[in-house]
Structures are given as C-alpha cells and as structure tokens.
C-alpha cells in the first residue's frame, strides 16, 4: 500500500442523473475526490476520466463545472463543501477557447480580475505567462498562437480564476509525442502548484492519462441481471479505480510495469464491452 492518506473532500457528486427530453443520459453517479496527502510531497490530484465517445462524458463535465444543473443529485466543491457554481471549476474545452478579441495578456487579465484586485491580477497574469513559457507572446491574439501555446494559455486562464479544480477535455488529442510530453509537464506543474489542485483529464489516451493519474473513473452503461443495458451511463464502484491504493500512482516509468500494462488492457476490455 502506498504511503499516503486522505483529507478534505474537494469534489463530491451524489446520485447525479441527467435526462434530456425523457432520455436518461447519466444515472445515479456518486463520486468523490479527496485531498491525497503524501508525507514530504506537496502535490495535488489527477483523475483520469474515460468512456466511449458519445456516452455522456461532456455532459458530466458540464455538470461538474456547474454549467448544467443535473436532473437529480448534487455536486459539491471546496472545503467546506458548497454547491458548485459556474466559475468554481475550470473547464478547458477541446478546442481551447480563448477570447479571440483580446490579446493573450488581456485574456489572462480578464480571468485574474474575476478574483483579484487589478494590481494583484496583473502580477498573477505575468507570473502565469512566465511559468507557462508564454511571456514572449503576451501581445499576440489567440489566432496567432500555436496549438500548444493556445492550450497552455487556456489552462492558465482557467487556473487564474477557478478554485482548485480544473477539467481538461481531451488534452492529448491530435498532439505529437513532444507536445504530449509538454502537456504532461503542464499538468504535473498544475498539481504541484497547490496541495488542493485537482486536474480531471477526460481522454481516450489511456496509457498517457493513467500514468499521470491517481484515480480513474470509467463512465459506462450498467447491465441488469439478465444482461440488458440499463438506460444511462454511470460510474459504478467497479469502475472507480484508486491507483494510489493499487500502487500504480506517482511512479516514474510506471508505463513499463506489467501491472500497469495489465490495467490498461483491462480498461480497454471494459470500454470495448461497455
């Protein structure tokens, strides 16, 4: 067992269900993310979130981000826990949206000023520009940035005004291996910024995401005793993986371990049969 313990709740979903025009999309989802504490290490949490295309991952992300109220159930964030509101959870969507009419610096400032006084906001925006290697591009408009720069800017913008939670939707999609390494580095940097920082990675890249994560969620339909699919997808207990407990978290070179390879194969089977 890994040398770690759990403290305060950062995110809690209770019996979340979602219906659109009578069609059940998500059903009875209860999930928790708690502050995982490792002696001598100040590090946040990384959750890998998987599921087949079109199963409702984006809907659940929007619910977690407070953008869409669930049909039933609750989402609570922070310590002490409170119902989620838009702005509590950062959400970097697939195409890394930024305000195209603002320069990069302005994009960060407009986010930072949501939480801080102008002088403090300016200092924080400058800090993030430097930290994410974006300082030389501060006067550029988003359309002038490369895909990687745009992604870093979108993450920085969300970090500047969200509390501690940030959802990244498909952060590795369409990237070459060097860019994937860069994004991994950014995610690790985000988790190292604060003990409570938590990154939820929605991805189809199982190996890359699992190697970063300490928790995995797999959204899939459940079957009844007769083997029939129940309406709506859920993340049942079987599909909530605590990698820290499994001894598969926070290890460099974890991808070469046989247990890790077995887990990836298991996840692939679970997704195929879902």
């Amino acid at each position: 067992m890994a040398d770690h313990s759990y403290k305060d709740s950062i995110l809690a979903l209770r019996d979340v269900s979602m219906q659109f025009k009578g069609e059940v999309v998500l059903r009875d989802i209860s999930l928790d993310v708690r502050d995982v504490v490792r002696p001598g290490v100040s590090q946040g949490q990384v959750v890998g979130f998987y599921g087949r295309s079109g199963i409702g991952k984006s809907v659940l992300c929007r619910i977690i981000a407070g953008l869409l109220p669930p049909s039933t159930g609750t989402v609570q964030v922070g310590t002490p826990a409170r119902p989620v509101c838009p702005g509590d959870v950062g959400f970097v969507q697939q195409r890394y949206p930024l305000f195209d009419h603002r320069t990069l610096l302005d994009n960060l400032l407009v986010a930072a000023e949501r939480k801080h006084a102008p002088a403090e906001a300016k200092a924080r925006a400058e800090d993030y520009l430097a930290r994410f290697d974006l300082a030389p591009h501060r006067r550029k408009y988003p359309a002038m940035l490369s895909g990687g720069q745009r992604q870093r800017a979108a993450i920085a913008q969300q970090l500047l005004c969200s509390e501690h939670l940030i959802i990244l939707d498909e952060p590795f999609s369409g990237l070459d291996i060097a860019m994937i390494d860069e994004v991994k580095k950014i995610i690790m940097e985000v988790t190292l910024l604060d003990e409570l920082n938590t990154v939820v990675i929605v991805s189809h890249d199982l190996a890359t995401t699992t190697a970063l994560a300490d928790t995995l969620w797999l959204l899939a339909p459940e079957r009844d005793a007769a083997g029939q699919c129940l309406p709506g997808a859920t993340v049942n207990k079987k599909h909530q993986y605590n990698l820290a407990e499994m001894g598969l978290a926070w290890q460099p070179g974890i991808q070469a371990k046989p247990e890790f390879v077995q887990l990836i194969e298991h996840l692939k089977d679970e997704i195929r049969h879902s």
Partner: protein
Amino acid sequence: MLKDLFIPNARPHRSVFLTMVGGQVLLLLLLWLFYPLQLFPTLGEVLGSFKELVTSQGLIQELWASLTTALGALAIATVLALAISYLTALPFFRPIAYAASKMRYLTLTGLTFFMALMVSNGHQVKLSVLVFGATVYLVTGMTSVILTTTQEEMDHARTLGMSEWRSFYEVVVLGKLDEMLEVVRQNFAIIWTMITLVETLYQSEGGIGLLLYKQNRYLHLAGVVAIQLVILATGALQDYTFEFLRRLFFPYSDLTTAK
C-alpha cells in the same frame, strides 16, 4: 506567373494582380469607347455631362447633402439595430427583433405615406424612412451574427465566473463587434438605394437622388450614367473606409480568414 490567375485559391504576385486589374479596366474603357450601340452614352458624353453636373447643377453639393443624410440615418439605425439585436438576449424582446426583421418586406412608398403623417417636415420624413429601412436590414444581419454564438463560447465565459450579463457582454457584444461593423458596411448600400427613391418623393431638400430623377425624366442618359458612377465611387470609398476602420479597431478580425 500569369497561370496563377487561373488556379483556384492561388496567390498571384501583387504586380501581376495589379496589371490584371489595370488590363480589365482598360478593356472595359475600350469596349465603352467603341461600343457600337448608340443607346448607351459614350465615355466622352458621360465625362461632359459630369462636368456640366458639377459646374452648373451642384452635383458635389447634392452628393454631400445626400451623404450627410445617409450617414446620419446610418448612425441612428446602427444604434437602434444594435439595441434591438442585443436585447434578444432577453426572451421578452425576441418578438420585437423578429418583427423588426420581417418589416424589411414593407414597401417604401407605403412607408413614406405613414411617416409623412407622423412627422412634421420633409427632412424628418426622409430621415425617418431611411432610419426605418436601414434598421430592419441591420437587425436581420446583426441577429444572424448573434445567433452564430456557440455553446462553447458562452461556457468558456461562464467557467471564468462571469455572470450571464457579463458573459453576454464579453462574448456577444465585445467579441462580435467587428462582425457588427461588417454588417453595417454591407447594409450601407441599402441606404443609397432608398435615399434616391426618398429624395424623389420629397424634393424640397434636393439631393443626388433628385438630380438622378431629373436626368432620368429628361432622358439625359449621359447624366444618369455620370451620377450612377459617382454613387458607385462613393460606395466603393465607403467600403474602403469601413474596411480600414475594421483593420484599425479590430486587428484580430482578419487573422482567421483564409488568405
């Protein structure tokens, strides 16, 4: 080099392109000079008529009168159309925008009659008809721009903790201001179409429309062509000015356009 002119999406050298434009204009002028039909006035006749219109009929003054009226109407119509379009954020005002958009099917002649009953003098009638006509077209274009707002854009603003009004202001008002200016540029032409008609109906204030009407009435075809060319040149200059303003105030606007 020259073959680039006939390859889809090619980017010919600037000098080649300018030479091509010059050649096309020259060809047009030559066709005009040697046009066999007598129905269409010759280039010389048009130039002569232009000179006469400027020196003895006050073409420049009439153009200025029409231009200032058109710009005044456009300014008022733009403010009104922006207000109506932005208010579509509130469900209560959506029927107003819908109705305003559909009113572009109303005929101008019927409209001037009602306007004449409602306002006191000829200038007011002219201005109110132009404002009304331009507003309904602008509302149509502006609401179309607003409707291009995506869920992703609004969600992005909301995830930054912006309220619904602040999100709307950031994404729709600030974010689409450049597209609104483009809508205004495109619809400015409709004012020129209307102003020539309205000036004919209300002749007391003159204007280039009245001048055109008189040339038509007395079958001065050279004068008609000269005035039309003046209007065309003014419109082209307007377009250029709007493009310039867009590049000046919204430098990000063209960054995603295919070159």
